[in-house]
């Protein structure tokens, strides 16, 4: 028997999706007036519509709109998984590794130190004090959590950073370019490490394939896509953009490549997000990709999949119940200290003045949407508990909100 949505379930699914899209857009527009990141509005909508507020005040209505049984949760889960794949694809599309090479020594040092210092700070705290995070002292889970925590602290959020730099009119300056290039590099390495960690959490997989095979698969896939794959895309894009329907042709082929690549990495037991992210880099880095095509892909993903994904976060977690002030404080302190210190040291070693290096440090500190995606995937994979997840979300929001004003102090 084929399982399919019933008439009522389809109505519920459509109602919940439309509610999420419309309410999140209203909040995003309101937030925009207050200069708040869109992702913040979407998260707030999730909290309002989720168990934290709506579920508590109107439990029956909440259960009707976001049911936990039946086929609707499966359908929603599929949409959310697709959303995260699409989000990683567009995030990859903006990564230009050539920019790191172009910016030279200062970008290389900044990106290296802004990863290494927060990573080891996070890793060390999680490894030596697992009890703070209620992590078992067993070697395996402790190692996985420590690796994840280090990665979570070292990642940056390119979209938020880019917006801050644009608002401050710093985009095309030396500081802006160093921050953008370093954030791109952070993203690439961060997602590579995170994919590795996720693949380790898959127990059936670790029974059969050794750790080194996983590393080799990840590196091999990355290398292939960023060299030969990129070359093939580069050669075929002009043809796609001129011979196929415009812009439909390039849109369906690009998203098709993204899903194909995601399916491949998932099939070799590396998470689908890596395939999507790397496909995004290979696709987005092409000189032949027209600006209009790039914008259409971004518009489609950012305004349909992103709200669904970010709103869904609030639907899954009760933010009040899972708020742990100690964990939030520790995560915040480590996130600020590691990233700002690391990026500042890197920029200084690269030859920047003290103030500009500090501006780079605070600029790199914005975690935004990337951190939220990372945390959600870790929560779904059972890597972290809900209080840690909530702490990561709060950290992502606070670092994003404070990044611009703190940067400004050192630019002026």
């Amino acid at each position, binding site marked *: 028997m084929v399982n399919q949505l019933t008439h009522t379930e389809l109505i519920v699914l459509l109602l919940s999706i439309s509610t999420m899209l419309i309410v999140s857009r209203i909040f995003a527009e309101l937030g925009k007036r207050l200069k708040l990141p869109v992702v913040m509005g979407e998260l707030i909508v999730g909290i309002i519509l989720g168990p934290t507020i709506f579920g508590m005040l109107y439990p029956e209505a909440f259960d009707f709109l976001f049911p936990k049984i039946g086929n609707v949760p499966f359908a929603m889960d599929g949409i959310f998984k697709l959303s995260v794949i699409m989000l990683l694809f567009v995030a990859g599309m903006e990564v230009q590794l050539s920019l790191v090479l172009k910016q030279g020594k200062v970008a290389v040092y900044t990106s290296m130190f802004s990863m290494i210092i927060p990573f080891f700070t996070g890793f060390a705290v999680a490894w030596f004090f697992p009890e703070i995070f209620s992590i078992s002292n067993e070697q395996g889970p402790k190692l996985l959590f420590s690796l994840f925590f280090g990665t979570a602290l070292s990642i940056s959020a390119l*979209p938020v950073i880019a917006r801050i730099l644009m608002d401050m009119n710093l985009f095309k300056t030396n500081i802006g370019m160093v921050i953008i290039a370093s954030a791109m590099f952070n993203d690439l390495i961060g997602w590579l490490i995170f994919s590795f960690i996720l693949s380790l959490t898959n127990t059936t997989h670790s029974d059969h394939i050794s750790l080194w095979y996983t590393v080799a698969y990840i590196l091999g896939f990355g290398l292939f896509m960023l*060299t030969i794959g990129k070359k093939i895309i580069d050669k075929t894009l002009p043809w796609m953009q001129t011979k196929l329907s415009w812009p439909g042709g390039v849109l369906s082929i690009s998203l098709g490549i993204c899903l194909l690549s995601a399916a491949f990495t998932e099939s070799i037991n590396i998470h689908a997000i890596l395939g999507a992210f790397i496909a995004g880099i290979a696709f987005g880095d092409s000189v032949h990709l027209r*600006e209009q095509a790039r914008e259409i892909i971004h518009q489609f993903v950012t*305004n349909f999949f992103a709200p669904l994904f970010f709103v869904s976060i609030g639907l899954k977690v009760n933010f009040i119940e899972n708020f742990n002030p100690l964990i939030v404080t520790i995560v915040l302190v480590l996130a600020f200290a590691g990233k700002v210190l690391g990026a500042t040291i890197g920029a200084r070693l690269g030859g920047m003045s003290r103030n500009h290096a500090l501006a780079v440090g605070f600029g790199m500190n914005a975690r935004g949407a990337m951190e939220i995606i990372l945390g959600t995937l870790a929560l779904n994979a059972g890597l972290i508990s809900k209080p840690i997840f909530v702490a990561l979300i709060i950290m992502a929001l606070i670092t994003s909100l404070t990044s611009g004003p703190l940067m400004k102090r050192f630019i002026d």
Partner: protein
Amino acid sequence: MDLSKLKKRPSYPFETIAVAVSFSPRCQPLLQQAKQISDVCRASLLLLHIGEKTKEKEKELEEIMDKSGINPNHSRVIWMEGEPVDTILKLCKLNIVDLLILGALEKENLLKFYLGSIARNISRKAKCSVLLLTNPTNAPIKFKKFVVNGVDNPKTIHTINTSLYLAKLLKIKDVSIVNEVDVPGLAMTIAEDSTAPQTKEIKKSFTENSEEVLQLVIEKCDIGNINLNNKIIKGKPGYAISKFARDKKADLLIINSPDTHLNLFDRIFAHDIEYVLADLPSNVLIVHSRV
């Protein structure tokens, strides 16, 4: 090696011009065009051959020089054995060469490009300006259109001035100064929270900013009676100007020398000059400003 004379030496006039001699079928036309350029610039001509000096080769070179109209009394030939790229670069430094002329294929096969051909590797590393002639012929040089990069970089003013110096000598009237607008991450940044007028305004501000930067640089240049066309184009730096030069059918594309030491990674994740070197759109002059 005393390099003090090289430091801060202006990028023009070209007082010493060197040409690499390879004894290939394109050698004679290359020498002929090098001779024409050195005559126009009133520069001394230096012929460099990396390889063994034999009687046969000496005789062959004499014949080629004779055909090319190069007077042995007004030029020097240097023979040296060694690794071609490093030896040519060393000879250029030792002889305070201002311009090195090389023959280059428009496009090389993939393997050769990634490994690095002699001409392209010299272009990446040279401490003097390098002129890559893609299709040297025995006919007199008739350059009509120059395309010059106008990117926001301290080197650009030297590159534009060198281009103008050359344009005056070669009596070129059509010189386009091109600045490329590329904002990484822009599509992502404007996707979620910008209205259509805001997006338009943001894009316009980047273009206007590039125009201002270019105008400021041009104001400092010695333009003379040359008619400059300022152009702002969208696209990745290096690729966009290369495409522009090809579309415009330019005779010479003039760009800055690289800012960093380039290696294999720069070819894989291409940027700036690497896009030009990957597929030369015309003859290319890489100006080393020595700043």
